[in-house]
């Protein structure tokens, strides 16, 4: 190695050392993303989106965490740990809208920005709520998806939901009801609950198939439910007779789209959701925006949102996946 090169290398080393001290001196923003449960593919994807946003913002680190079981108790423990770590923001999807309020209020008192996404927290427990889409739009989507592939738009459909007490599924089903008039040929014959347990959802789907021999579609606004229903339809040899649709992740439905058990389904993009929620949190931390009704907040590449009276906003429309785009998305999430 020539002396000149050594010198150059030395300078580079010193510069990089100096740079790293400079970066360390600027306080790094720490944003915690709290999932409903950490084993859930949806939130793993949301975490990826949050990482993407952090990279774009710079000097920001993401702490992706959550309980192992989807319970409010587990999330409260996680929140308390994050308060002790003095994070700058908590971005959370709640297992219970009210149970988390006291813990999150404690966080807010200590100056931590709280943004809820997907499953919301009551307004007093958070600064901003980001809905993946509007409840009304999702409600319309879950019935439209079923109606889309009915012969002549006429036929019997059934809903297979998660637990009978789930906040979001019940809101979507209620919204779907208001759109029944838009699809006059569709007859909703049943709403059953699989409790987001695979074996129970599978049995409920089997029950639907046997009690309604002329059923034309099952719409399941839950990922466990839709996969279980698709499997039950496949095993019952009803592919082509019963179309399974609803809300699911592309990777989980790839096989069932290919087999024809499901013609199409929808989901908002969880990567975008994690990205947008992180962007909102960052804007609130940096003081670029205030969490108040009517405020407009930029969410980077996804666009911008406007807060309503409850300081909540919808990100975008659900996105429909079918045989034409399943391969592209099933490798992402």
């Amino acid at each position, binding site marked *: 190695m020539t002396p000149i090169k050594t010198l150059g290398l030395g300078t580079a080393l010193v510069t990089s050392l100096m740079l790293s001290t400079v970066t360390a001196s600027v306080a790094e923003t720490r944003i915690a993303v709290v999932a409903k449960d950490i*084993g859930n593919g949806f939130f793993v994807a949301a975490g990826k989106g949050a990482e993407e946003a952090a990279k774009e913002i710079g000097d920001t680190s993401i702490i992706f965490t959550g309980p192992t079981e989807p319970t409010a108790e587990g999330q409260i423990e996680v929140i308390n740990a994050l308060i002790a770590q003095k994070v700058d923001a908590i971005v959370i999807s709640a297992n219970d809208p009210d149970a988390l309020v006291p813990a999150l209020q404690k966080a807010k008192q200590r100056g931590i920005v709280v943004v809820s996404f997907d499953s919301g927290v009551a307004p007093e427990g958070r600064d901003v709520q980001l809905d993946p889409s509007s409840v009304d739009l999702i409600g319309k989507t879950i019935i439209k998806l079923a109606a889309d592939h009915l012969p002549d738009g006429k036929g019997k459909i059934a809903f297979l939901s998660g637990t009978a007490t789930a906040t979001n599924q019940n809101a979507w089903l209620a919204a779907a009801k208001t759109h029944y008039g838009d699809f006059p040929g569709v007859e909703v014959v049943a709403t059953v609950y699989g409790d987001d347990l695979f074996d129970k959802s599978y049995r409920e789907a*089997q029950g*639907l198939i046997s*009690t309604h021999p002329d059923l034309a579609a099952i719409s399941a606004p839950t990922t466990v439910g839709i996969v279980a229903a698709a499997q039950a339809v496949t095993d019952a040899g009803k592919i082509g007779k019963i179309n399974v649709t609803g809300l699911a992740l592309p990777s989980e439905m790839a096989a069932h789209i290919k087999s024809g058990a499901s013609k199409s389904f929808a989901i908002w993009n969880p990567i975008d959701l994690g990205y947008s929620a992180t962007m909102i949190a960052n804007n609130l931390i940096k003081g670029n925006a205030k969490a108040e009704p009517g405020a407009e907040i930029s969410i980077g590449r996804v666009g911008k949102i406007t807060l309503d009276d409850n300081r909540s906003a919808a990100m975008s429309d659900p996105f429909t996946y079918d045989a034409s785009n399943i391969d592209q998305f099933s490798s992402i999430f």
Partner: protein
Amino acid sequence: MKALLKQREFWLLAVIVAAMWLVSLRSPGFIQPASLANILNDTSILIMLALGQMVVILTRSIDLSMAANLALSGMVVALLNIAFPGLPIPVLVLTAAVFGTLLGAFNGLLVWKLNIPPIVVTLGTLTIYRGMIFVIAGGSWVNAHQMTDAFKALPRGSFGGISLLSWFAILVVGLFYLLMTRTPLGRSFYATGINPTAATYVGIDVGRTRFIAFCVSGMVSGVAGYLWIARYAVAYVDVAGGFELTIIAACVIGGISIAGGIGSVAGAVLGAIFLGVVNNALPVVNISPFWQMAISGLAILLAVIFNARTERKRGRIILKQAEHAA
């Protein structure tokens, strides 16, 4: 005939038949042969697991980690299937059995060598095993399109009108019947539970017997893990979440005493079938989901009350003379 009426297995069978008849009044299709085959298929995994749990409970222990073991073993074979799609299915089944046995043996060793109460040991390993699924799978799902067709086909195959999964369960029932009634090991499970002290006096190593019981329940869980994952064509962290309680409920309903020593293969099988019938009937008769849970719970409670009544033995007064003398 009188002896038959005394047997609780007979009564349980009668209750199952009555329940099916009641359901058929509302939904005639429920007792069609195809529907019955379907219920048997749906209950097969529970039957196997209940038998494994029965052996453990007989020795005055309990295995809460069975569902977690099932989920972990299932995830391991699912990942193996992705990594080495060419591995023949019998090898995967064997792997699941060996892996499940190892997990069970770990429970058994802690109970045997460290003398920790089984409920504590398995409560701990339940969480460990669930956590390990998260670690090995990185929290993501293994989906249907990632598994090979052969992997998913085994439980779906059919022979003589019922599925291979059902045949598997029937084979396991047969093996357990032989084990419990025709081998010294089977008798020592009972002996350990009825009276551990007396069992020790006749030369049965109580700790070792419990260890073997946990290995048996582990092996069953492992095999059931493959079957569950292959049947539903999906593997993730929460597979069979809470199923350990269903397994124990099947045992309790089947008349296996939680205090150990009492129970039969027929009881465990019928207990599992009872739950299978209830679980399959509720969606068909269209009952509110809130009532479904209450009904399942009530059935368990009634079974326990019935058990408590039949198990209460009349105390025998010995040394009556001496008592009077004093």
